[in-house]
C-alpha cells in the first residue's frame, strides 16, 4: 500500500507475513460456520463481509481518487435491485447472468455522477453525494411499479450457486451463501490490491496527490478519475449482488444518504487507505451498532459518543495505528 | 547614540517538522534598530528560523526573547502583538480582499509621532495607491511584494522579519524594494531581520550577516564591511 518507499529490486520483506495472516483469516472464516452452528453469527459475519466489500470500494475511491462519497450505498442498492429484478422477471435460475447484469448496469448508472465528480470533486462533491443519494433514494421510492416502492422488492427466487456444473447450494441456504460471499469478497480483495499496485493505480495516486501536475505529465486526469470512480462503483455493484442474494430483499432505506455515511464511518474506523482495514471497520461498525441498539433505545446517543471518541482518539483507525495517514485531499 | 539592547535574542533553539530535526541549536540576536541578514543555501533552515521566531513552528528546545519577553512557546498572534511583523516568502496576500482591505487587516495605531497609516503607505508605494480596490491576489508578483511590505509597516512594528523579499522580482523592482527598505524602514528606526538569496541586496540593506550552514548551524558571523572586502568568505562558507 505504501508506495512512497517502493524501490524496484528491493522486495518488501513484510509481504509474506501479511499474506500469511490474510490467508489464515480467510481459512478461519471459511471454517467458522462448521464450528459454530449459530445462524445469527453466520448471518452477521456474512453482512460484515458484504459491507466490508462495499467499504473497501469506498476506501479505494477515497484513498485513490480523493472522491468522498456519501452515496456509495446507493450503488449497492442499484445493483441489488437489478439483480433482483433480473431473477424475478427474466430468469429465476441464472445467478451469474443476473449478477453480471447488475454490476454492468451499476457501472452505467455510475457514469453521470462520475461525470459530475470529475468536474467538481472535493468537499462540494461530498456534499453533493448526500443529495444525489437522496435522489436515487427518492427515485427508487417513487418508481413503485418496478421497485415496489418502500415495500421493497419482493418475491426473490433462490437460485442455485453453481460454477462449471458444480453446485454449492441455494442462495436461500445461509451456509452456502456464507461461503459464496467469503470467496467473492476474497477474490475482490486480492484483485483490488493488485489493481492499486498496478500502473493504473499509480496514475490514480498521482492524480490524488496533484491533479494539476498529473495533467502536465500527460495524464488525462478526468478520464482516469472517471475510470477510478467506475471501478469503485463496480465493486459496490458486486457487494450489491451479494446483498440481495443473501437478504432476498432490498428496499429504499438501504440506499438512504445517512446509511451512506455509515459506510464512510466503516472505512475510517478501519483506517483509511488500507484495504483490509475496510473489512475490519465494517465488522466493528456493524457489531457496535447492533450491540448498542440492542442495549438501549437511546442508542443514537451512545453511537454518537463512540464515533466522536474514535475519531478523536483513534485517528488512524483500528488497523492504521502507527501507519502514516493518507491525506484526503490536498488543500 | 542610545544604548542598544538585544531586541531579539535566540538561544539554542531546536525546531522540528514532525520527526525531522531542522534547526539544531541556533543562537543569534538582533539589536535595536539594527538590520541583520541571514544568508545560506537552500534548505538550511532560514525560513524555518523565521517561522520559529514568529511562533508558527514553535521550537522544542532553546528560548526566544523579544524585547525581554519570553516568547518561546507563544502563539503567533501574541508575538505579533509584541510588535513583530512578518513578510513571508510566499507573500500571503489574502485573495478576495482588495489591496486596501489587505492593509486594513493589519492596521494598528502607532505610537510615534509619524505612524504608518493607509495614506502613508500609499504615499510611499504609489503603485498600490492606484489599485486600492483591486483584488490583492491579481497583482503582479512585485506589486504583491510591496503590498506585503506595506502590510507589515502599517501595523507599526518594532521588528520586521522578511523572507526573501527580492524573490521573483524584476531587477528594477529589486532596486526599488531595496530603496524602500533602506530609506523607510531603517531610517524610521525599525529593526530588521531579513533572509536573502540575493547577496547583493542583503549587503546593501543589512549591517551584520549570519551565514547559515545545514540544520541551522551558524557557520560565520560577519559585518557588511568584512564581506565587501572579501567576497570569498561567502563562497567558502556557503558552498559545499
Amino acid at each position, binding site marked *: 500500500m505504501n508506495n512512497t518507499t517502493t524501490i524496484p529490486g528491493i522486495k518488501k520483506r513484510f509481504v509474506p507475513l501479511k499474506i500469511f495472516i490474510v490467508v489464515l483469516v480467510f481459512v478461519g472464516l471459511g471454517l467458522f460456520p462448521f464450528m459454530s452452528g*449459530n445462524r*445469527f453469527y453466520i448471518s452477521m459475519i456474512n453482512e460484515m463481509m458484504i459491507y466490508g466489500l462495499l467499504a473497501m470500494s469506498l476506501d479505494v475511491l477515497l484513498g485513490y481518487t480523493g472522491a468522498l462519497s456519501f452515496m456509495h450505498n446507493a450503488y449497492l442498492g442499484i445493483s441489488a435491485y437489478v439483480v433482483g429484478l433480473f431473477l424475478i422477471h427474466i430468469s429465476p435460475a441464472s445467478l451469474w447472468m443476473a449478477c453480471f447484469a447488475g454490476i454492468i448496469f451499476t457501472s452505467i448508472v455510475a457514469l453521470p455522477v462520475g461525470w459530475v465528480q470529475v468536474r467538481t470533486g472535493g468537499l462540494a462533491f461530498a456534499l453533493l453525494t448526500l443529495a444525489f443519494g437522496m435522489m436515487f433514494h427518492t427515485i427508487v421510492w417513487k418508481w*413503485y411499479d418496478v421497485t415496489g416502492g418502500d*415495500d*421493497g422488492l419482493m418475491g426473490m427466487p433462490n437460485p442455485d450457486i453453481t460454477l462449471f456444473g458444480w453446485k454449492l447450494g441455494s442462495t436461500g441456504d445461509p451456509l452456502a451463501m456464507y461461503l459464496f460471499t467469503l470467496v467473492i469478497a476474497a477474490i475482490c480483495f486480492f484483485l483490488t490490491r493488485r489493481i492499486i499496485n498496478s500502473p493504473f493505480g499509480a496514475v490514480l495516486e498521482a492524480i490524488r496527490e496533484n491533479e494539476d501536475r498529473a495533467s502536465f505529465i500527460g495524464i488525462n486526469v478526468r478520464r482516469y478519475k472517471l475510470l477510478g470512480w467506475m471501478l469503485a462503483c463496480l465493486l459496490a455493484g458486486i457487494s450489491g449482488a451479494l446483498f440481495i442474494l443473501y*437478504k432476498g430483499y*432490498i428496499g429504499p*432505506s438501504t440506499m438512504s444518504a445517512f446509511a451512506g455515511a455509515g459506510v464512510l464511518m466503516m472505512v475510517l474506523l478501519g483506517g483509511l487507505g488500507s484495504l483490509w482495514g475496510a473489512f475490519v471497520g465494517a465488522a466493528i461498525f456493524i457489531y457496535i451498532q*447492533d450491540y448498542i441498539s440492542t442495549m438501549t433505545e437511546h442508542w443514537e446517543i451512545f453511537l454518537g459518543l463512540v464515533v466522536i471518541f474514535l475519531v478523536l482518539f483513534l485517528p488512524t483507525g483500528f488497523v492504521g495505528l502507527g501507519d502514516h495517514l493518507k491525506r484526503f485531499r490536498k488543500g | 547614540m542610545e544604548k542598544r539592547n538585544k531586541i531579539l535574542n535566540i538561544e539554542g533553539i531546536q525546531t522540528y517538522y514532525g520527526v525531522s530535526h531542522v534547526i539544531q541549536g541556533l543562537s543569534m540576536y538582533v539589536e535595536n534598530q539594527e538590520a541583520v541578514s541571514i544568508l545560506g543555501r537552500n534548505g538550511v533552515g532560514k525560513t524555518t528560523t523565521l517561522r520559529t521566531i514568529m511562533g508558527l513552528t514553535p521550537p522544542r528546545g532553546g528560548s526566544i526573547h523579544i524585547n525581554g519577553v519570553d516568547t518561546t512557546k507563544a502563539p503567533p498572534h501574541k508575538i505579533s502583538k509584541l510588535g513583530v511583523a512578518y513578510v513571508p516568502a510566499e507573500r500571503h496576500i489574502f485573495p478576495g480582499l482588495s489591496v486596501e482591505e489587505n492593509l486594513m487587516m493589519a492596521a494598528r495605531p502607532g505610537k510615534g509621532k509619524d505612524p504608518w497609516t493607509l495614506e502613508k503607505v500609499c504615499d510611499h508605494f504609489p503603485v498600490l495607491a492606484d489599485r486600492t480596490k483591486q483584488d490583492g491576489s491579481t497583482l503582479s508578483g512585485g506589486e504583491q511584494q510591496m503590498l506585503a511590505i506595506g502590510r507589515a509597516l502599517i501595523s507599526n512594528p518594532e521588528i520586521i522579519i522578511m523572507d526573501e523579499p527580492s524573490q521573483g522580482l524584476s531587477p528594477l523592482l529589486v532596486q526599488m524594494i531595496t530603496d524602500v527598505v533602506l530609506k523607510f524602514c531603517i531610517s524610521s528606526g525599525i529593526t530588521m531581520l531579513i533572509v536573502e538569496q540575493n547577496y547583493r541586496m542583503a549587503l546593501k540593506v543589512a549591517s551584520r550577516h549570519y551565514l547559515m550552514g545545514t540544520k541551522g548551524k551558524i557557520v560565520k558571523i560577519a559585518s557588511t564591511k568584512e564581506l565587501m572586502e572579501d567576497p570569498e568568505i561567502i563562497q567558502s562558507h556557503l558552498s559545499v
Partner: protein
Amino acid sequence: AKPVKIGVLVPLTGIVAQGGLEMKYGIEMAAEEKGTVLGRPIELIVEDTRVKPPVAVTKAEKLVYKDDCKALIGVFSSGVGLALSKNIDKLNVPFVSTHVMTTKFYGLHPLVFRSGQLANDQTAVGNVKGILARPDLKDRTYYVIVHDYSWGHDAGERFIALAKENGIKVYNDTYDKAPIKTKDWSSYISKIKASGADGVYMAFITNVIPAFAKQTSDFGLQGKVKLVSAAAPGPLELEAGGEACHGIFGASDWAWDVDNANSNDWEMRFWKKFNTIPSDAAVHSYVGAMNLFNAIEKAGSTDAKAIADALRGISFDGPYGNVRISAKDNCMRNSAVLTETMAAPENPFGAKVYMKVLKTFTADELGPPE
C-alpha cells in the same frame, strides 16, 4: 422455569418512534398482565427496527437465532412487515403484526398474522359510511392527499374507489403523494385552497396529522375545509396541536372515549402504569399480544406450527369487545369507531382534545367477509 421469549419489533427511532413506543407499552402491559404461559414466565426482548426493513430483518434474525424467541410481534410499517414475511420461512416462528394496515396481509403466509389496527379496506368502509351518514359531510368535494408510501397509496386508492361507488365527490383521482419528510405543508395547503375543495381525505402517519391540521388552521381553513383522516391522530400530538386540531373526522379501531367496561378499565390500568394518554396503537398492540399469549397457552407448546394453528380463529374479549382472528386469512376482523376530535370533557388523563366517538361499527359491518 425457563422463560418463553417473545421478540418485540417496534420502531423507537425515526419518524414513527412515538407510535413505536406506544406499541411497546401495549405489549409490555399485556405481558405483565398475562404473567406466564405454559407455566413459564414471559420474557420480552425489544428491538428497534428504525422503520427500516433490512434492519428489521437483521434484528429478527438476532431475536430468533441468538435469543431463541418463539414468536415475533409488533412492526409498524407495511414495508417492514412485508420484508419480515418474506423471511418468515427462514425464521420459522409465528409473526403477529399489530400495526400493519396493508391489505396485502390477508392470507399472506401461514405463519404471518395481523391483529390490531384496522386494515385499509376496513378504514375506507368506516370512513365512507361515516361521511354518508353526515349531511354536512356528504356533499363535500374531497381533496385526497396521502403520505408517499405503500400504506398511504393503498389507503388513498381504497377510499377513492369506495367514495365513487357511493357518490362522494373526489377532487383528484390521482391523489397527491407527499413525501414522508414533509414538514412545511404550505404548498399543499395552497393547492387545496386553489382547488376549491371543501374536504380533505388524508392518509398520514398518525403523528403528522395534527401538524397538518395545525397548518391548515394557520391558513384560516379550519372549519371551512373538513379533514377526514384514514388513521387515528396521535393523542399526544393532538394535545400539542390544541384547538387547531379540532374537527378531524375519521374511523379508527379505538379511542378512549369508547364506553364499555373492558375499555374503561383498560384505560385506567394503562394510565396508572405509563402515565400517558392511552392510544389506539397501545390498544391494538395489547390485543395482539394477548392473542399471541393465549394462542401459545392453547397450543400447549412453543412449536411454531402449533402456535400458528392456535392463533387461527382465536378470539379475545378486550377493550374492543370480542374480536377474532379469521381462520381463513390470518387477519383480525375488527370492530371500529367513528370519531371527531373536539374539546375534551373533564377526564382523568388531563387531555384537552379528544376523539369523540360518534358511532360504533361491528366487525361484520366493516368486513371483509370470511
